[in-house]
């Protein structure tokens, strides 16, 4: 099967057609997604106030559309220190991207990262909410409500609470149950945070950036080690021995992206760490990992420097059948592009001209997706500086920054996209942090929800162009009885109920020949955020989907035909296409 896929991909040089005008237009307010982030004070006196919150897209109520859950912070550390807390915010979608706020699950905390997946195997999406000293599993009820089912971390008042950043729900041991990886940031006492300097006396180190006084950290504060829990398949989890994470050094983790890095069928993890080398955790399929970022060439930037990794995007940029990585970084550091190679990754940042385009930006969330539907991926980055002081003269950057979108193909050179339409998400110089990708209005094109620090959440709807599209939702085999999935007694790999980890290759007929598109079902996409479980394929203006190769985590391989452009399909392992609908 793998040989078939690669042969198919090696011939995939055809272009899908002319480039289409495209933009992401922010319609949040008009469509009822009225939400404003709180993240401490405007001066950002502490690092906790600067990092913002994530967003999750998941289908609540099983009505087939994606609803929105937003993490939320507090107005000050004083409030947190006094025992205050806030809930996460939930907005229901009517299927046409019109939103209504609905009561949240009643949590209390300073929330940061969100993860989605079917943790109890009942066929609907559940949520894990991480925060400053909190980590809660929320299981979706029959009516679509999210109800707390397990509290994995509860230490909001300790001197250095576990500070959860990005989360990932994925199946590390191929037992069909989703496991949980939690990225952690650093030790910070919310009641006595360092201010002005670290250390005492003559050897105190001033907290400065470019000579300007700023909040302290991450350098100089103790990093926290990432943690992992094994899912039991019923919504409960047990924490795993840290040794299973390959003795990876504690960094300042900000982003986590599961994907099959080595093409062996199980799920690996890319971890972006602030001010320290990135990690690449290669899974053995049994829930243990080896850290191989240096060997794979993704630990550092192309210049050999550790960078401040903030976000990770995964996708097949050059359509060679291997996953590539884009890793966002601090200002004065480029967003790095690492292309999958026969062994590890090769550096492509400078070949694509991304250094010049990105080095003055501080970028967080990132997505590699075919927004305009031309058959080639674009790179979206959510941008905004951590320091309000960036607006001082001669910093070379600014506090508010517009989000950016680059075409990365067919020419291997980054070219800016969008930003010209009124209300474009890509025009306003704000402070973005988290973002989640998914089709919110049912037209098959991936849209974005973007959180802004201290500001209104944006809803970037894909607008423009005439591309044909296909959306695919993968589902694991039917459980019998529903909700009672157990590990295979023989130890054979199983596909999770929500298809997490399934790899897809879509072969498309287009003018000039065929090309193939690669995707993998993973929701842990975007800084502190969770994106759609759907796979969105752009076919260009004249492309026709020919065949869909499906590699299920169970190792079953299937080839589906009879596909049509302009529809979305549900496929279930062993059953083929079980439902299809026209796109709007």
């Amino acid at each position, binding site marked *: 099967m793998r040989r078939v896929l690669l042969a198919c991909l090696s011939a995939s040089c055809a272009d899908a057609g002319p480039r289409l005008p495209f933009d992401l237009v922010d319609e949040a307010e008009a469509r009822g997604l009225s939400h404003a982030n709180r993240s401490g004070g405007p001066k950002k006196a502490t690092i906790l106030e600067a990092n913002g919150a994530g967003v999750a897209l998941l289908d609540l109520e099983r009505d087939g559309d994606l609803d929105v859950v937003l993490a939320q912070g507090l107005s000050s550390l004083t409030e947190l220190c006094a025992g205050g807390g806030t809930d996460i915010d939930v907005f229901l979608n009517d299927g046409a991207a019109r939103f209504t706020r609905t009561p949240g699950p009643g949590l209390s905390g300073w929330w940061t990262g969100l993860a989605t997946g079917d943790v109890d195997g009942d066929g609907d999406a559940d949520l894990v909410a991480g925060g400053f000293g909190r980590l809660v599993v929320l299981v979706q009820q029959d009516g679509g409500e999210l109800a707390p089912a397990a509290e994995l971390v509860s230490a909001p008042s300790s001197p250095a609470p576990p500070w959860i950043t990005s989360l990932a729900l994925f199946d590390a041991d191929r037992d069909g149950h989703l496991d949980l990886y939690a990225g952690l940031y650093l030790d910070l006492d919310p009641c006595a945070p360092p201010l002005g300097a670290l250390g005492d006396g003559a050897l105190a180190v001033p907290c400065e950036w*470019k*000579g300007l006084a700023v909040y302290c950290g991450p350098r100089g504060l103790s990093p926290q080690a990432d943690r992992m829990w094994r899912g039991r398949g019923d919504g409960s989890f047990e924490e795993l021995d840290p040794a299973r994470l390959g003795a990876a050094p504690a960094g300042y983790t900000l982003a986590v992206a599961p994907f099959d890095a080595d093409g062996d069928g199980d799920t690996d993890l890319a971890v972006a760490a602030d001010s320290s080398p990135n990690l690449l955790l290669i899974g053995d399929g049994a829930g243990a990992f080896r850290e191989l970022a*240096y060997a794979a060439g993704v630990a550092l930037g192309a210049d050999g420097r550790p960078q401040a990794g903030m976000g990770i995007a995964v996708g097949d940029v050059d359509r060679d059948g291997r996953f590539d990585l884009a890793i966002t970084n601090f200002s004065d550091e480029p967003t790095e592009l690492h292309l999958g190679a026969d062994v590890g990754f090769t550096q492509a940042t400078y*070949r694509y*001209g991304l250094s010049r385009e990105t080095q*003055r930006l501080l970028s967080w969330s990132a997505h590699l997706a075919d927004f305009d539907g031309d058959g080639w991926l674009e790179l979206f980055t959510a941008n905004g500086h951590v320091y309000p002081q960036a607006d001082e003269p001669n910093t070379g950057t600014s506090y508010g920054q517009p989000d950016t979108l680059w075409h990365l193909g067919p020419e291997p050179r980054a070219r800016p996209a969008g930003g010209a339409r009124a209300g474009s998400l890509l025009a306003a110089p704000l402070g973005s942090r988290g973002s989640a990708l998914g089709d919110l209005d049912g037209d098959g094109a991936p849209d974005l929800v973007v959180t802004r620090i201290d500001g209104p959440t944006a809803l970037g709807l894909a607008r423009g162009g005439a591309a044909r599209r296909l959306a695919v939702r993968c589902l694991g085999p039917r459980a019998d009885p529903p909700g009672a999935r157990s590990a295979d007694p023989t130890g054979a790999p199983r596909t999770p109920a929500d298809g997490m980890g399934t790899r897809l290759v879509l072969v498309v007929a287009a003018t000039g020949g065929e090309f193939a598109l690669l995707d993998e079902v993973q929701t842990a996409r975007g800084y502190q955020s969770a994106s759609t479980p759907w796979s969105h394929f752009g076919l260009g203006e004249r492309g026709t989907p020919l065949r869909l190769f499906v590699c299920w985590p169970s190792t079953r391989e299937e080839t589906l035909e009879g596909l049509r452009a302009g529809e979305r399909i549900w496929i279930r392992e062993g059953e083929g296409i079980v439902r299809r609908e026209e796109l709007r």
Partner: protein
Amino acid sequence: MSARWPAALAIASLASPVPASPSAGQARDARIAAWTEALELDLAAQVLREGPVLVAPGGALARDGEALALVARALYRAGRETEADELLASAAPLPEAGAAGRAAVELARAWIALERDDLGGVRALLAGPDGAPRFPKAPEAWLYLARSFARAGEAARAAPLLERFLELAPHHGEAPAAWYLLARAALEQGDLEAARARRERAEAAGRWQAYYRTRRLQIRRDPDAPLPRLGLAQLWMEAEEPARAAEVLAELARRAPGFAPGWTLLGEARRALDDPHGAREAYTRALELDPEERLARHNRAVLDLAAGREADAERDLAWLVEHAPERDPRAVNALLLLARLADRRGEGERAEGLHADYRARGGTEPLRP
């Protein structure tokens, strides 16, 4: 060219790089050093407070290619790319700017080309006909050329350039990155042992650089505080650069003459520089300030022994035995040195007794080496 710097004026102003007087030259060198350090510490704004005026026509450094290059780099880092380009364009064609000045300007242009992903531009600016740098004495010429290959995925071509860069500037701020790139090159060649060793060098260099940066920031914040300068000198000693340490300590002695640990470390630096007379002076100064400076006392005794001043040495060693904590390594070694001194004098019983005390305190060396 900006309106503030008409091209003809700017070019004319670069005609003579020679400063008017030695004192002006010293001031210029100090300013260049300060700007260089500011850029190393990512403090471009500090260069821009005075730099653009000084390198503008009529300014004190208007004819100075090195100053121009530093200001151009600061402008670029500050996001003022056009001004940086114009400044360098005005400087580029001037043979009179002096070799160092011309090299600095070309290196600044190459650095900007790197920032702009213009890898071919870097090679066009820096590579001679044989591919080697046009400015072989400038470490950054080797580094930038190496980067142009490393960024293009040609680690093997970058490796020899990086090795030369590290030979020329082992403590450069980019040394850790150079070691990492060399590790990557070794990895690509399948030499796992070399890759591991180079990565360890990179990590060690990175730690050193982190401290080096911190100490310099502390010194800038409070120039008269002795501890940061002492820490900086210790870093140079760790790096086996006693001359750099001595330089730092001389400034520390000027600013804080009553700070005994500074004199002790200056003695160490001078000793490493094979200056026993200067070292003894420094140790003596430390002991005048603080008789408890045990390292100074011990090492002054060692120097005195080597110089045949046995009575002086004996006094210091006896003081250590009497006053230092029993297990203090300098006190323990003082016993050994006293024992050997007694042995040389033929005082066998005393020598044996002292050596027995030495062994009782954990010493393992024989009486007669």
